[in-house]
């Protein structure tokens, strides 16, 4: 049925180019990725986003020029404006996902010339997918002879291509594909075409095993407490055969089943691993960052702690069996999905070597564990947290709070956080905040009411903090570098859900803007019909700014360097130009405001021999550059900015780097607003220019 809808985009001409590439690969070599390549999404399986390259450095970063660029508009039936991919560069070819089709493209890494393209036409199944567009990337595998590219389509099919030609590998699965909606220890409902499950992250291949998680629609206002479950599976990279499965919601008889009271493990869904996984090939261990169970902000239908929701789970690479786990948030209520790749780091704490795993989070804590045993490197005691009063909800009275490192971004809202540029602005910010319940991290969501509070004002929840781009790690300094939004305010109010909308008791909403069921033509519209209650559009909605100024004090977004040997900050800077609205605001005239950084939550960092590199997420127009955004470089030891180069649109995919023909390149995905997706490659001008 599906195969009938599938139509592969292939072009015989590309085979010719593929054959040329084949000639350049040493036939007898075993595959050992070079330090000058970028062979997996996060540079390596340890999630470091680090390459020891230094041709591009503090002295010349600002001289970078565009080597090549490729718009992704034509890799799908419409342009996309949210290009989030990070390409790979291996063995002299650059690979990326691109466009609204999530096509795979192979390019010459020095010139950007298109070598081959592969796309899957999935018809209704693609159109119904919960995670569409080009996704975050793909995986490369080689045994030294065969070279393969693996990616997951929007319609949730794992595709295996010959890296040299882009042609599907016939011996893998069913003619090059594995239907991920099948053989998943559950029946995907309602059917294989529209059944909600997919993924947008890049697959990971470790020791011949392909690891695939799952993602769903946003979970703020789900239609039901029932949903498909996000299990994690391992597949044989040669055959596509399923090797193992890990049940992120335990089945009856499995460890953790009893943390779902009243049988709620049976019907609750989601709880997937939608972001990047990390692998220690030497230890044979996988680190799985698990998301929130069904219904982001209301857990009344899933009493209990809900393992393995919002847990870091370590499983065996060969069998998928659980080795250890640590639940970061018990009975999740804040959409604190573990949203990015765990980072592996070999560190020295109090004179003792530790094989560690460090997990950046939306809530701004960097959780650091011994990755062999799962024991926290620094204590994470259970501390009492506020218990709420939403009808039917159950609350965990405590949550684990890391004692070290301290939180690197705001994860609650207090009056102290509100802007203080001038007393008048502060008063207005206080007035807005007074309509909400405030508190520190883990202050629970509240029912939205017009006469008391409209909800709980939070930070470090759904957006973060650190979201999917995650952090970087420098094995030389033992520093983690991590971007975080420090001003992404999220009001979380709950309203009773009408039965026609959802079978969940409470969903996200605002008093005065209760969910309306659309009526049929003429219904309740005749004379003497009851008149609808009069209410203003927007109801209790409050804009979270004062005359365009963010409600909270700068810095709005930061990059923090955290040393993992000591658990201390090395430096923290505001990342991003001060927004136009702040620089030109009449109420701020005459004030000396240091760079504020920007309010955005999707910025990934890259670390090299000497630099930390990250683009901006907001557009600005300044005396130094036209409307656009800057790709910035910082001295990794001090955080001091050492260079910047112009981009026509914000960074939307994390930057990567590689060397080819003796030149270093940096590739970054930009898009957003009216600017459709584009990969841009920067390099230094040739000598003599």
């Amino acid at each position, binding site marked *: 049925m599906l195969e009938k809808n599938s139509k592969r985009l292939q072009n015989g001409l590309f085979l010719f180019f593929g054959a040329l590439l084949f000639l350049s690969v040493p036939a007898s070599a075993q595959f050992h990725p070079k330090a000058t390549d970028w062979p997996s999404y996060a540079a390596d399986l340890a999630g470091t986003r680090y390459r020891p390259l230094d041709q591009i450095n503090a002295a010349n970063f600002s001289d970078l020029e565009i080597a090549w660029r490729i718009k992704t508009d034509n890799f799908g039936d*419409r342009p*996309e404006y949210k290009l989030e991919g990070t390409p790979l560069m291996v063995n002299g070819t650059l690979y990326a996902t691109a466009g609204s089709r999530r096509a795979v493209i192979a390019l010459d890494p020095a010139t950007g010339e298109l070598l081959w393209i592969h796309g899957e036409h999935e018809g209704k199944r693609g159109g*119904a997918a919960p995670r569409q567009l080009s996704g975050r990337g793909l995986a490369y595998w080689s045994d030294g002879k065969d070279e393969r590219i693996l990616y997951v389509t929007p319609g949730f099919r794992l595709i295996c291509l010959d890296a040299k030609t882009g042609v599907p590998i016939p011996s893998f699965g069913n003619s090059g594909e594995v239907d991920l909606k099948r053989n998943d220890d559950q029946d995907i409902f309602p059917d294989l075409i529209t059944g909600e499950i997919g993924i947008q992250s890049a697959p990971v291949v470790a020791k011949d095993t392909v690891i695939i998680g799952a993602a769903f629609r*946003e979970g703020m206002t789900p239609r039901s407490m029932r949903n498909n479950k996000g299990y994690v599976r391992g597949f044989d990279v040669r055959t596509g055969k399923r090797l193992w499965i890990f049940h992120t919601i335990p089945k009856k008889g499995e460890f953790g089943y009893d943390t779902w009271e009243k049988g709620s493990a049976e019907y609750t869904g989601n709880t997937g691993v939608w972001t990047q996984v990390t692998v220690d090939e030497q230890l044979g261990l996988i680190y799985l960052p698990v998301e929130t169970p069904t219904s982001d902000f209301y857990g009344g239908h899933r009493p209990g702690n809900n393992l393995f929701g919002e847990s870091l789970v370590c499983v065996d690479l060969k069998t998928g069996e659980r080795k250890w786990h640590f639940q970061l948030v018990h009975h999740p209520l804040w959409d604190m999905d573990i949203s990015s790749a765990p980072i592996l780091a070999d560190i020295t704490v109090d004179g003792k070597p530790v094989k560690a795993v460090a997990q950046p989070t939306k809530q701004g804590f960097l959780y650091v564990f011994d990755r062999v045993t799962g024991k926290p490197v620094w204590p994470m005691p259970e501390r009492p947290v506020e218990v709420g009063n939403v009808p039917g909800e159950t609350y965990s009275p405590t949550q684990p709070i890391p004692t070290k490192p301290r939180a690197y971004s705001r994860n609650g809202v207090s009056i102290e956080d509100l802007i203080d540029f001038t007393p008048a602005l502060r008063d207005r910010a206080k007035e807005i905040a007074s309509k909400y319940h405030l508190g520190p991290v883990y202050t629970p969501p509240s029912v939205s009411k017009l006469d008391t509070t409209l909800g709980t004002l939070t930070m470090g929840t759904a*957006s973060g903090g650190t979201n999917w781009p995650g952090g970087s790690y420098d094995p030389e300094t033992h520093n983690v570098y991590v971007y975080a939004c420090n001003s992404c305010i999220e009001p979380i109010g709950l309203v009773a859900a009408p039965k026609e909308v959802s079978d969940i008791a409470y969903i996200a909403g605002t008093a005065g803007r209760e969910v309306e069921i659309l009526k049929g033509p003429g219904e309740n519209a005749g004379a003497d019909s009851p008149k609808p209650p009069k209410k203003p559009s927007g109801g209790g909605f409050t804009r979270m*700014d004062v005359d365009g100024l963010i409600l909270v004090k700068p810095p709005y977004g930061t990059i923090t360097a955290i040393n993992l040997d000591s658990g201390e900050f090395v430096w923290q800077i505001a990342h991003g130009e001060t*927004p*136009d609205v702040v620089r030109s605001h009449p109420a701020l005239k005459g004030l000396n405001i240091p760079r504020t950084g920007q309010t955005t939550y999707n910025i990934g960092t890259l670390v090299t021999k000497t630099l930390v590199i990250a683009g901006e997420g907001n557009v600005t127009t300044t005396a130094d550059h036209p409307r656009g955004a800057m790709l910035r470089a910082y001295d990794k030891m001090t955080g001091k900015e050492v260079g910047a180069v112009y981009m026509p649109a914000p960074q939307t995919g994390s930057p990567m780097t590689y060397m080819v023909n003796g030149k270093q390149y940096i590739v970054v995905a930009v898009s957003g*607003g009216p600017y459709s997706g584009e990969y841009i490659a920067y390099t230094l001008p040739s000598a003599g220019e």
Partner: protein
Amino acid sequence: MKYPLAILAFAALATPLRRQVPDASLRSVWDGVYTEEQAKRGESIYKKECAACHGDMLTGGESAPPLTGGAFLANWNGLTMGDLFDRIRKTMPQSAPGRLTRQQDADILAFMLSINKFPAGKTELYKQSEMLKEIRFESAKPSPKK
């Protein structure tokens, strides 16, 4: 009267060029460019078509950008309502872009303006892209004109 051909060709080129750079004399979103009624219609459509991804409070999610707040206001600041309208027309709703009518898209835009606390006025927001390009998106309220 005959004009030299070159001047005609220049005039033909000049118009689209000028439109690409919104000038300060255009109306802006602060000038009451939609009505309350239109925003209410837009709210119903938004809830059905947009809220699942962009959120009830327009704060976005992991897969959908916010439609209010710092990044949204910064990234559209200085552009026009036509640019925003075209973006919606081309790409939304994600499962079936272009399924909504231009009127529905304009209504959703009116709702987004109301949520972002731009003032309502007496005339509805246009539903033609070219006309919407005459309305500048300004994130901060401009100083009163003298």
